[in-house]
């Protein structure tokens, strides 16, 4: 009679989960590398229009973002007219000059001429607001602009 008698049972052996952390880490690294942290919390609706002649914006650190659109449902008290958002808060048109100046000050001097302003404007906004923004940008000599758009067919814009 053996002392180490093997237990006879119908139990299935447990699945070896030792490699589970490896798999998860692999996914983790992928997302860590692919992540771009959201810089601003949007307080406005921001559905970008579609366009098919778009160019990609490279060098993310040399881009200044100006958002515009209707205040989102949490900020109904700000009205239903399209508004401008700079950084984290609503702003008026004449604050754009100060915003551009502060963005320029935060970059190295030799990079300032390469700064691009990306206009992320909701497709339901009207051109009055965009025209005002453009006029302000001309005043501070920030002439490189980019109308942010999602690659797609323009026929989707009118839906």
């Amino acid at each position, binding site marked *: 009679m053996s002392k180490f008698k093997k237990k006879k049972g119908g139990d299935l052996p447990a699945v070896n*989960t*030792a490699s*589970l*952390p490896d798999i*998860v*880490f692999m*996914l*983790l690294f992928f*997302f*860590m590398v*692919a*992540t*771009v*942290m*959201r810089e601003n919390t949007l307080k406005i609706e921001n559905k970008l*229009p*579609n*366009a*098919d*002649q*778009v*160019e*990609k*914006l*490279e060098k*993310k650190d040399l*881009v200044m973002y100006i958002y515009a659109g209707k205040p989102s449902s949490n900020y109904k008290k700000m009205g239903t007219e399209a508004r401008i958002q700079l950084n984290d808060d609503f702003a008026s048109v004449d604050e754009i000059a100060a915003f551009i100046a502060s963005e320029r000050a935060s970059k190295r001097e030799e990079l300032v001429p390469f700064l*691009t302003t*990306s*206009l992320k*404007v*909701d*497709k*339901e*906004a*009207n*051109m*009055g607001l*965009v*025209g005002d923004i*453009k006029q302000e*940008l*001309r*005043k501070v*000599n*920030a*002439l*490189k*602009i*980019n*109308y*942010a*758009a*999602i*690659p797609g067919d*323009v026929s989707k*814009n*009118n839906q």
Partner: protein
Amino acid sequence: MAKRSAPAVNAGSMADIAFLLLIFFLVTTTMEKDSGITRKLPPMEESEEDVIIKQKNIFTVLINNKDQLLVEDEIMELKDLRAAAVEFLDNGGDGSCDYCNGIKDQSSSDNPDKAIISLKNLRETSYAQYISVQNELVGAYNELRNRRALQLGPSSGFRDMNFIEMQKKYKDVKWPGNKTKLKEVVDRIKLEYPQKLSEVQEQ
């Protein structure tokens, strides 16, 4: 006394920690890259003397407050705009443009260098429509530049490459080809079909 080996660290919770981090990065990830239509605004200082431009060299596009298009004083659908702009830019009325394929109509533009597209919009015009129109006009320029790139490319050793690809290759650091030569071609095409788009907003 027998030497005891150190007890193994319990790695069972490793997966939990990794999952926690994974979920954090999953939530904060935004994959899409910013893209859009790049434009250059005109500088503020107006030139002193008014440049006189012949009426036939201007292609007027007006978007009204109901998002309708008025192109050269005629109502037009958005889908026809690109073809109309290409026809105008490529006209070559004075015969100095030997690479143009246009119909050489005397009442349309003289050559691509003189041809100007004037885009007018009202304050009430929707941004979506404005971007659609911008897109079509940029598309018209790109169409002509692409065609020219396919003509010029082979003689400089850039076969089957359109203008968009040339620009992309020029920016690509990993591209092994001859960049100075490519730059020459790109600059030449830009000079032959310059983007002259003036914008006015009516109050």
